[in-house]
């Protein structure tokens, strides 16, 4: 990082790029950590009327005292206007299609935007189920968001092991086998609209749904991104550089990230 003389970290760039995808007034669901910070950054900066919620049904709240430890942490429960429940938040508002946008993370993502957060196996799982070599966090609410939200933003650190031709296990569906294969399951959600990484932004081809490189950051480049992607990454003809964070953006982000969690990496 230091070699770039950046005034911001890669994670901060990723969070700001993600936040820029959110529009004012949208109903949005955030997970814990980076996802929440990207969301509340957007609210603090350019989308003051965003309607934010958590999976468990916390409404009208914004974090106090630093990064919440979880989506029902007291740091976010301290100023809510409504608490309901999981059936309401993930069901009535997300799986139903009412939520405009969700932000999810990934341990592994593939070229059709399918996400694995369940486990790492040595090789293919095979025809039968077998326990993973390394168990991860499971699907959580991300599967529900991936099926139901109007669009999904996937945030992931750009490392070769995380970008697979095909994920070993689909925890949360992207475009499955590409094209219109999502339709087979009648998902009301539109699928992932972007994979936003520590190196750039990938977006799906409108027809094949294969993710292509859409933009890179001032500190990254196309070759670096290709070499960190474990599939033959296509580059959009409209590939461009993502604008650097503005002073206002950084200020808003760091106000949300008051404990500086994002500045560490």
């Amino acid at each position, binding site marked *: 990082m230091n070699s770039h003389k950046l005034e911001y970290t890669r994670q901060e760039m990723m969070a700001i790029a993600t936040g820029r995808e959110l529009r004012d007034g949208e109903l949005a669901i955030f997970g*814990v*950590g980076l996802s929440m910070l990207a969301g509340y950054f957007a609210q603090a900066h350019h989308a003051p009327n965003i309607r934010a919620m*958590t*999976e*468990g*049904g916390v409404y009208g709240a914004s974090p106090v*005292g630093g*990064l*919440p*430890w*979880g*989506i*029902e*942490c*007291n*740091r976010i*429960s*301290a100023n809510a206007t409504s*608490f*309901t*429940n*999981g*059936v309401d938040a*993930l*069901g009535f508002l997300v*799986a139903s299609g009412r939520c405009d946008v969700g932000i999810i993370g990934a341990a592994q993502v593939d070229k059709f935007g*399918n996400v694995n957060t*369940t486990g790492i196996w040595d090789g293919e*799982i095979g*025809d*039968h*189920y077998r*326990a*993973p*070599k*390394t*168990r*991860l*966090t*499971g*699907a*959580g*609410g*991300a*599967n*529900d968001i991936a*099926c*139901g939200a109007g669009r999904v933003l996937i945030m992931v650190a750009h490392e070769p092991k995380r970008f697979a031709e095909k994920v070993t*296990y*689909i*925890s*949360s*569906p992207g475009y*499955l086998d590409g094209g219109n294969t*999502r339709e*087979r*399951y*009648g*998902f*009301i959600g539109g699928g992932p609209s972007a994979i936003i990484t520590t190196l750039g932004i990938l977006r799906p081809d409108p027809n094949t749904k294969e993710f292509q490189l859409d933009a890179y950051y001032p500190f990254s480049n196309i070759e670096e991104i290709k070499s960190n992607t474990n599939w033959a990454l296509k580059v959009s003809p409209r590939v461009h550089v993502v604008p650097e964070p503005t002073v206002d953006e950084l200020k808003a982000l760091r106000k949300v990230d008051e404990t500086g969690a994002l500045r560490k990496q």
Partner: protein
Amino acid sequence: MPQPKLISLATAVDRFTQNGVQYASGAALPIGSDAIVFGRELLRQGRNQLHAIFHCNSQQLNLLAGAGAVDKAECGFSGLEVFGFANGLRRSIETGVTQLEDYSNLAMAIRLLGGAMNWPFVPATVNIGSDIQYRSAFSPEEYPSTSKIPMITDPFSGRQLGAFQSLQPEVAAIHVSMADPLGNAIMLGTEWSRFELSRAAKKVILVADEIVHTDCMRQFPNLVRIPDIVVDAIVYWPFAAWPQSSPGLYDVDEDHMRSMNKALATEETTQQYLKDYVFSYQSHRDYLDMIGNEKREKITQTETSFLMDPYRKWILSADEIAKLVLEGDR
């Protein structure tokens, strides 16, 4: 008029659980409200081969699985949010001690809703199309699994969707902020699936941080989302969710969250944790000492404490509660 149902934690575990029981946890997500003291007591009484039904992992499932007491588990999320992977659960899955059947968080909640309704299945518009649908830890030979989340047809449109099996756990321990002696309960913070679970489970034990007079419930009946009629027993146990939080009462204990999870990473350190934090106390007084004065003071300085203010005047004293427990344990 309904009767008081306050009993001791030891009696509750003794009376309502046995080895192999389907045990459901009523909690918020990993960092929220959780009846983890009930899980500690399960271990203290040597319960094992549990079938754990948790909408999400919590430190409780992490502990139970890490201690080797969980044969089967079903849950949505299996991590600890910002505190990382759940090392005890992870280890028990990776070593094959625990078979974890994966669902999403919504799936667990609506499977409980289906159980509460006594529907044989619940329509599934999520989890289908992913490996959650196709792969089953409980039926590993079956791929794609036809018994876990089969496809069904909407009779109106002909559209294909999935079907979840409903859940009716044999016993549930549900953490609540406060309960009255009859079993009416108020939860502060998100319910997650505690409302549905309290109806779906065959036996319901409340674990309450505070006991309040029934007059409190009559003042705020709309807050009483768990009415006495569905409750079998109430256990009074301040700091019941520790090291997790209880909105209005105490914050998460960050240090213990980390050290506990670290301990659960290996069998050896887990044994030490059990010795220090599970088998170590003989009374609730001991338990509070184990947490420590300073720590309790710190975590009760929560930004959410104003949430408890409207109810404080109805809180029963430890003495009043002790008398009721004595009767209940008989």
